[in-house]
């Protein structure tokens, strides 16, 4: 079994009738994802790509039994789209949209507290259970079903890591893009929890980078609850130009122990295996599996 999604996932697309929504919904249907509804306010009653379109999520959910949604809504309205999905008690919401105002995400985070929704993203490539279900915009050609769970802050490196894992004979249970935005839905801690509990997943790859505290939080979680399966982490950004502050990005990183070295150290102290370079993630995981079998 994959995490977050399975063969019973019934997907609703928020913003399906737009350019990006149309293009990626078509690809997801081709991949075998059960797309049951689209939501675009004002276009209710229409049909798009052979899928019924509704004015609201509540309506669409009631009519189609949708249990997951993907958000392609442009940045100005994406916050509202997420709040609507949370209010409609959508169990899983995956947000692809990037450049959403950060305070809109703070409002979404407040709405998530005590809700029934699990949010992935924004600025995420999505969730992929190879050969089962694709909710997202990622490349799928190299992904194969198998024992490795991948949680990543980077869409481009997820494709890279998936390709290396498949090359090393290790398929993937699920890949999760937690998104590149500072304020987002589920993080590494929730992904680890899901993968530790999932019987199909036997090993986990975390793809992290400089900035924020995701990696330190994951390390603390493992130290407190135990390392239940082998975890390999790749942390990129060691050679990034620190001295240059780009706009407010530096200011936002205030108070965070956000450099690559402290992340690597925290994870190592928790028993996580660090991939020595971005091209060695697949072989590092394969070696960890071989050691475990020996």
């Amino acid at each position, binding site marked *: 079994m994959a995490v977050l999604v399975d063969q019973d996932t019934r997907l609703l697309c928020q913003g399906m009738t737009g350019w990006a929504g149309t293009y990626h919904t078509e690809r997801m249907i081709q991949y075998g994802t059960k797309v049951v509804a689209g939501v675009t306010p004002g276009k209710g009653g229409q049909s798009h790509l052979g899928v019924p379109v509704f004015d609201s999520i509540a309506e669409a959910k009631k009519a189609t039994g949708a249990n997951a949604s993907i958000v392609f809504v442009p940045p100005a309205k994406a916050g509202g789209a997420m709040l609507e999905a949370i209010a409609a008690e959508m169990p899983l919401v995956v947000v692809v949209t990037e450049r959403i105002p950060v305070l809109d995400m703070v409002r979404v985070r407040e709405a998530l507290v005590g809700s029934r929704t699990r949010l992935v993203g924004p600025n995420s490539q999505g969730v992929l259970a190879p050969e089962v279900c694709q909710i997202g915009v990622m490349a799928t050609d190299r992904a194969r079903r198998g024992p490795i769970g991948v949680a990543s802050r980077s869409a481009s*490196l997820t494709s890279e890591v998936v390709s290396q894992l498949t090359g090393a004979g290790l398929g993937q249970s699920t890949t999760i893009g937690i998104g590149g935005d500072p304020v987002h839905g589920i993080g590494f801690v929730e992904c680890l929890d899901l993968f530790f509990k999932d019987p199909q997943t036997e090993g986990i790859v975390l793809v992290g980078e400089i900035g924020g505290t995701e990696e330190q939080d994951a390390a603390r979680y493992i130290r407190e609850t135990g390392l239940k399966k082998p975890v390999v982490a790749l942390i990129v950004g060691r050679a990034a130009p620190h001295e240059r502050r780009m706009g407010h990005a530096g200011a936002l990183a205030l108070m965070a122990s956000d450099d690559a070295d402290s992340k690597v150290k925290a994870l190592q102290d928790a028993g996580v295996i660090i991939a020595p370079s971005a091209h060695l993630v697949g072989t590092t995981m394969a070696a960890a599996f071989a050691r475990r079998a020996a």
Partner: protein
Amino acid sequence: MQLHEFQAKDILRRYQIDVPLGRIALTPDEAAAAARQINSESLFVKAQILAGDRAAAGGVRAVRAASGARAAASELLGRKLVTSQTGPGGYTVKRVLVEAAIDAAQELYLALRVDLSSGSVAAIAGPHRRSGVERHLATGAPDFQTLTLGVDGERRDGDIADFCGRIGLVGDAADKFRALLGRLHRAFVEVDAALIEINPLILTKSGELVAADVKLAIDDNAVFRHPDIAQLRNDEDVDQVQLQAQRHQINYVLMDGDVGIVVNGAGLGLATLDMVRAAGGSPANFMDIRTTAKSLDIAHGIGMILDNPRAKVLLVNVYGGGMQSCDTIVDGLGIAFRRSGRVMPVVLRITGNSENFARMRLANFNLPKTECADMWQAATRATAIAQGRA
């Protein structure tokens, strides 16, 4: 989007937050006239550039009388100010803010920002620091206190009272601070700020709180809903290279090495920098081509590397994803080389969506290229070429 100090103070004034009496001057004569109007014993003349840490770089001058203001303004205006935040080129000072100096009984640091671990708006306060606040905060800052405020919800008075106590404010000063924090929080949310920093926040001898220096950055993703603030953006005040790159959907940062780097995706970009360093090389730039970039945008980005005389080799590391296929990037590469005329060796690692079609396109451009099977080979090969070893 960062605002100038004087613009930030104009915004805070709208929220009934006191700032010193001040005027903008574009010439030494205007600075002298401003000083006479302000009519204060002691004054500050402050360079208005879009970067912090100005005081340490000599961009803030304490002066007396109109003659002092005139002299300070003539030294600052037209000069390039290099601070720890401007990069080595510095920014040209086009305006100065002439301001009344405020007598302080106590000086504080106060900032509002989005706290990444709680995902909420948080206030940070502590004693005023002249310089290096970021470093101080990064190393733990035991004398600084944090309070999570949320965004639209009710402020909890008890927590704020406790917060005042933790930063050493009592009685009337604490009441004033509490009121100021409420107004500042409203300002933060209403203008979609990413950061409001007041350093110092001065408690005067008569018990008033005055924001003596203000840094205000607006969330770039939210500028679209503030046309009044968007019109304050003055493109001449920001890094031109970065600005042009961003207009072409590319994040670009110039570095001091010789390996030019072309990558799609921020994570893959960081990984490529790391690999070039690990191979003993030195990157000429960081580049992240956004998925929204078309081949002409990409040609512009690659053109910036071809225009960099320090770059000796172009390392192209591309994973064609669901939103941007390899051929789009290869087209940009070919266009950039034809425009530039410069012959620079190209080392490529291209894989993913439509890689074979991209290879066919690449053959047409007839570039001095080497293709590698994986990113590490590409990074080591590019480094060897840059160092004259291949």
